[in-house]
């Protein structure tokens, strides 16, 4: 749509001074866009420029007068910091694990919901609720009422299987956080895949059945290829949102024990707000931004393709 929408402007090679297509008219057309654009640039882009600037300085807030230009020293420190490497690995594990498991569960739930049955709308409403609930409240719920070693629901449910009084959060901190995240993000994947399932071309499905394909055959040959775009979108969007996970770690483990369950956002937060090390945390921020841009490039391409694909049909 955007492509066709641009065409009228391009088709006007010489601009008259007045009337449609003139320079003044262009500004009138642009005007409604400007407030949002300027606001976004100021609030979201300027801070990043400062982050780059700070990252080249040695600056600790608790040592007044310590501020000085140090070039790339902060970056060297970041890359030789073994904690940073562990935290980076945690980030990858947590993001990949949470995306993968919520995607699989979401696919199963979506398949269950993609048929008419009594109470379908009600069950769907129940299933999406974990995604809506305030992440801080959800993390608190998992930390206490569900994962508590003595009174928690999880150990009660698992007690017939000999779970006893496992202290999940101390023993498996990263996994515990991941479980809470999977619970929160499965509904998102489910909704995305459900939208995919329901947009399957009716006539192709019908044709496959007429040709004698069984349910599994239709699923494999028609549904899976059709769902591919939605699954890819789920992976990149899930990764972009989950790579920024902060609430769950802050509430459940505080990154501990040590840095066992800290991810990059949490570690940078610790460095900035508990260590007051502005230069170091800014350098880490820049590293995270560069890593995110790599992921985001794929995401943008995918979203763009989804758009052009969606509008052709």
């Amino acid at each position, binding site marked *: 749509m955007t492509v066709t929408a641009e065409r009228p402007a391009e088709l006007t090679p010489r601009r008259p001074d007045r009337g449609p297509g003139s320079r003044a008219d262009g500004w009138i057309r642009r005007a409604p866009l400007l407030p949002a654009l300027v606001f976004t640039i100021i609030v979201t882009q300027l801070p990043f420029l400062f982050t780059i600037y700070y990252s080249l300085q040695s600056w600790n807030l608790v040592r007044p007068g310590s501020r000085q230009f140090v070039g790339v020293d902060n970056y060297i420190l970041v890359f030789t910091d073994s904690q940073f490497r562990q935290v980076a690995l945690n980030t990858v594990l947590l993001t990949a694990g949470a995306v993968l498991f919520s995607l699989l569960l979401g696919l199963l739930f979506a398949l269950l919901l993609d048929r008419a049955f009594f109470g379908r709308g009600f069950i769907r409403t129940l299933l999406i609720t974990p995604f809506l609930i305030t992440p801080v409240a959800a993390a608190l719920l998992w930390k206490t009422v569900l994962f508590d070693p003595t009174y928690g629901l999880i150990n009660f449910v698992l007690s017939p299987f000999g779970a006893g009084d496992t202290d999940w959060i101390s023993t498996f901190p990263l996994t515990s956080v991941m479980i809470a995240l999977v619970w929160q993000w499965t509904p998102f994947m489910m909704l995305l895949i459900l939208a995919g399932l329901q947009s399957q071309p009716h006539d192709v499905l019908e044709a496959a059945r007429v040709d004698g394909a069984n349910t599994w055959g239709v699923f494999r040959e028609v549904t899976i290829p059709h769902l591919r775009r939605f699954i890819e*979108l789920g992976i990149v*969007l899930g990764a972009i949102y989950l790579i920024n996970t902060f609430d769950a770690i802050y509430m459940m483990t505080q990154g501990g024990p040590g840095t066992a369950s800290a991810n990059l956002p949490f570690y940078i937060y610790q460095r900035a707000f508990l260590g007051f090390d502005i230069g170091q945390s800014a350098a880490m921020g820049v590293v995270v931004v560069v890593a995110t841009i790599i992921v985001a490039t794929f995401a943008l391409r995918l979203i763009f393709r989804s758009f052009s694909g969606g509008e052709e049909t």
Partner: protein
Amino acid sequence: MAAPTAERAPAARTEELAPAKKGKVGSSLLTVLAWIVGIGFFFPILWMVLTAFKQEADAYTSPPKLFFTPTLEQFRTVFDAGIGPYLLNSLFATVVSTILVLALATPAAFAVSLRPVKKVQDVLFFFISTKMLPVVAAIVPIYVVVNNVGMLDNIWTLIILYTAMNLPIAVWMMRSFFQEVPKELLEAASMDGASLARSLREVVLPVISPGMAATALICVIFAWNEFFFAVNLTAARAATVPVFLVGFITSEGLYFAKLCAAATLAALPVVIAGWIAQNKLVQGLSFGAVK
């Protein structure tokens, strides 16, 4: 809840697609499975709400108690502990930032859809890309600037940040709704000599208002749930509800029921907003790529 009505159409389609050759037993087994999965997945939330109505003594039992005498005592305790101002801060930050988002996003979306300007695509992807950059990389300069201008612990700081946070999603969502406005309708209106303002009000607004409502609800969910900026930039005066919940991670002791009451209060408004907006949820989160 908008779900049941909106579900009817696709449901009917599935029904006609699945011929009667499939066993009735298999079908009802799948229905039972869907119910078990749905209730099981929702159970932690149900348990949270139930626990909120318990006495602490009933909350700490092994095995857990399903039947008990409900009490409002925990909610009273939570309000006595001062959740009220936090709720009001959340409400204020959420409502004002959502209004600002709509005020900025609606004209912007209009400019990029109905009356397209050049380089539309670049602008749109710029908006999306701001959503993909990690906020943690911006928090240090934001903190420094906010501190320098004396706006730490000020609710307007959160309002500005939440507006910027939700603006890209709103622009993309509103754009997809503007595109549903039939072009002929607008042309006909301007043929009849209607001014732009009038045709916007009488032709465009009725078509986009449901989409606008959905966009607003999604902004409400994100603003209400936001924690990172709130915990780093506010203290006693401007802190929002998620920050109130932080108090429960440090104190040890028998407080399950009180905690659940606070968590229920914190989550309730967005759960309701989300239930209402559930059909547009994916559209918002995928920047309109999926409808």
